[in-house]
């Protein structure tokens, strides 16, 4: 068999940002290669370079030992490399076979300018049979489930006879049953001699189908292992990193009379596909305590944060804050009650890049009267407020009147933290507070969180950076498949124990939530 695809020092930069850093990937012919890594690790970027949708900044790609020269996805397909994207590219009003053949319609034997629908239907039906898919060629795509639409995307590639099939997070949109079906399908394709590259961050899937695994973190390969020689816990640790990067001093001071301030009880919700993504989650946070949530990304943490910060609705369960029920309140109402929110995605949820610094500095408070005089904005006060935040939190700006887009990642994050902490909250919900910011800002942010805790504040910290959760938290809940699987004390637990929990196994010593 041998190596079918290889990259040598493949690098991709977006401006100053290095999304892929000297990647040396080897894929063997006929194997299922799993690529795992957190969101933003650079998996899609790497695949898009293989599929020739992105131009590498430097480095080479070898196909069967030959450096590749082609330059577009169309050529890539011709050379046998096909890719199914995270987002489908189907025409909803077309039938299944029309979508499979889109762009390569079969002409009628005699009337060359007409499409031979009969022949197309036949060929597609044969194709579907050959690969053992279960699909009706004449169904209109908009009537199909997400899983079925994905099959069409795969069939599109198979019809074009690719040898290597790249699937970018194919399971993230599927129901559990559909996932199982897809995994079986992939094994079948492998049996027929196809090479498959599967991107996912669900470790169970990796263990179930893959032959080898490559772990990517922050644009670099940090591990290549044979699936048979590893386990979920080890992979989970590799993905979230084991390096403890704490530079601030955490004294883990306990409060004298710990008073519970925040109670989440049986919180549950579905995503838009109807799958349960947060599953009866319960926990409490006391004053002067940091409660951390760890877990491999995609296990419901994002949704939990959205539920708790007024961006998503719970279908069941309650949230209490200072004895008052606050389930499903709006974001501004939560803030008025003294809850500070640092959302997961800085530029999508935390700030508006195209608005001014001062407009961003009052975000979340616009519905209250804090910055108004008789219902009219008091711009003088708003500017003054913004300047105070900038001075007090040492935010480096270029131009006061300019937009947020001028700020670096770390300074943008500082602006959010400044805005949120300035309201004198009693509870802080911080999601991925240091993602993608520089070391200096990380230290600053960690210090802010600890200072807040030490002055009696309660913190909910959600981070995919295990070292961050481990070093800051006083207690840690580990999420797996939408549930909090177990709770551990960071001073007493081991990485192995957390790793097992993150992989869905409950070790003996862990405190298990009674349900």
């Amino acid at each position, binding site marked *: 068999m041998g190596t079918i695809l290889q990259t040598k020092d493949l690098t991709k930069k977006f401006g100053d940002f290095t999304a892929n850093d000297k990647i040396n990937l080897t894929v063997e012919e006929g194997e299922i290669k799993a690529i795992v890594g957190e969101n933003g690790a650079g998996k899609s970027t790497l695949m898009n370079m293989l599929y020739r949708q992105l131009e590498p900044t430097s480095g080479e790609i070898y196909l069967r030992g030959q450096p590749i020269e082609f330059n577009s996805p169309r050529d890539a397909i011709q050379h046998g490399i096909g890719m199914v994207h995270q987002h489908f590219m189907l025409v909803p009003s077309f039938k299944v076979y029309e979508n499979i053949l889109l762009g390569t319609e079969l002409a009628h034997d005699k009337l060359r300018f007409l499409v031979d629908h009969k022949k197309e239907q036949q060929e597609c039906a044969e194709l579907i049979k050959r690969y053992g898919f279960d699909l009706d060629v004449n169904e209109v795509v908009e009537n199909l489930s997400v899983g079925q639409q994905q099959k069409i995307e795969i069939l599109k590639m198979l019809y074009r006879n690719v040898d290597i099939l790249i699937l970018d997070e194919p399971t993230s949109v599927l129901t559990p049953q559909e996932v199982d079906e897809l995994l079986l399908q992939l094994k079948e394709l492998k049996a027929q001699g196809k090479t498959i590259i599967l991107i996912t961050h669900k470790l169970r899937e990796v263990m179930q189908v893959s032959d080898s695994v490559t772990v990517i973190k922050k644009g670099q390969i940090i591990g290549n292992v044979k699936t048979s020689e590893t386990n979920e816990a080890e992979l989970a640790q590799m993905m979230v990193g084991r390096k403890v990067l704490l530079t601030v001093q955490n004294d883990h001071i306990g409060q004298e009379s710990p008073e519970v301030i925040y109670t989440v009880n049986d919180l549950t919700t579905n995503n838009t596909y109807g799958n349960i993504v947060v599953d009866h989650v319960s926990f409490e946070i006391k004053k002067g305590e940091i409660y951390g949530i760890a877990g491999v990304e995609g296990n419901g943490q994002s949704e939990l944060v959205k539920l708790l910060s007024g*961006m998503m609705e719970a279908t069941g369960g309650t949230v209490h804050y200072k004895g008052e029920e606050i389930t499903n309140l709006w974001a501004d109402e939560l803030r008025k009650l003294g809850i500070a929110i640092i959302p997961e995605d800085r530029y999508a949820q935390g700030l*508006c890049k195209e*608005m001014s610094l001062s407009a961003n500095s009052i*975000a979340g408070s*616009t*519905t209250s009267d804090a910055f108004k005089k008789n*219902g009219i*904005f008091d711009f003088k006060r708003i500017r003054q407020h913004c300047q105070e935040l900038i001075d007090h939190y040492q935010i480096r700006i270029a131009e006061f*009147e300019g*937009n947020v887009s001028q700020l670096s990642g770390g300074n943008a994050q500082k602006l959010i933290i400044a805005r949120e902490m300035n309201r004198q909250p009693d509870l802080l919900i911080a999601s991925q507070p240091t993602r993608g910011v520089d070391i200096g800002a990380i230290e600053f942010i960690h210090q802010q969180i600890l200072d807040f805790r030490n002055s009696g504040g309660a913190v909910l910290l959600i981070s995919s950076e295990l070292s961050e959760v481990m070093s800051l938290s006083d207690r840690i809940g580990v999420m797996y498949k939408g549930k909090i699987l177990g709770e551990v004390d960071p001073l007493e637990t081991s990485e192995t124990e957390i790793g097992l929990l993150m992989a869905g196994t409950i070790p003996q010593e862990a405190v298990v939530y009674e349900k």
Partner: protein
Amino acid sequence: MKSNETLRNILNSVLPVLLALLIGAILILAIGENPLEAYGIMFGKSLFTLRGLTNTLHAAGPLLLTGAAIAITFRAGLFNMGVEGQLLIGGFMAGLVGAYLHIGNPLLHKLVAFAVGASVGVLFALIPALLRAYFRVDEMVVTLTLNYVMMTILEYLSSGPFRDQGAGYVTTPTIDSSAMFTRFGSTRLTPFFLIALLLFGILWFLNTKTEFGYKIEAIGKNPEFSEATGLRVRKSIIMLILVSGAIAGFAGAGHMMSQEYKYTLSFSGVTGLGWDGMLVSLLGSHSPLGIIISSIFYSALKTGADNINMYTSIPKEIVAVIEGIIILFLSIRFLNERFGLLEKLSKKKGEKNEPAL
């Protein structure tokens, strides 16, 4: 940064106009006339004589409002293309109030007509607003389509049940004189222009000084951020489309009471006040000052057409040509705003995102 943006907006608006005038000038030259003289007459008569200026301002009144109706939704990233239909139903219903309810008191009569006009504008806008907010149906498609539905319905109503039987053409009865705005002296200008200006000023104020404007800007620029900071995006979308409908209906009522006095099939003019409003808003970069300037410029162009006809041998269609060219340039701009056209075209190879198939 800010001033750069303003400069770019101004250029964006002035360039299409200059280019259109330039192409117009070439055409005028081709006919063998002097373009400078023609433009001089056109703008001179419509802006620099009392009669011309008042005519121009009078015509600018409804445009100011339809322009504002478009602008508030566009700024929020919504595309209410239904201003024309909302204006028509507003005007029509105000016409019925004016003709059938003999209220007598001039102030009250007009108030009722305005209230009815604005309300039906809101009701009509409710359809796309709810479809958009609850089912994510593209409001652009819905509002565009509904315009034609509304035109057809009003055509039926004005030629059937509400037709003025005495008239030799399709029209509703003329409104009572208590529902007519009186003109200032011998000009065509009426208090409605001042009312339009006042309403426009209020909108401007709300837009720059209150939460209303903050919401519009934030939702237009980043809906997810708006949701995350508690701005109730869905509710705001409904509200904005409804406010837009109210302004359009109000403009229709004003046009009825200050200019048309009855609903005919050409109530809203050849190009349609709602469509003109879109042009005005695009030309003015959806900014308050921009809309004032562009609505006056645009109606000067229209009033000027008659003068060109009267004082030169250039056919007045030249103005339609100039308008057409401006519209062409602005459509490019609109497509760019709506679909990011230029960005897609200028995307470098290394960053392309389209699939091969």
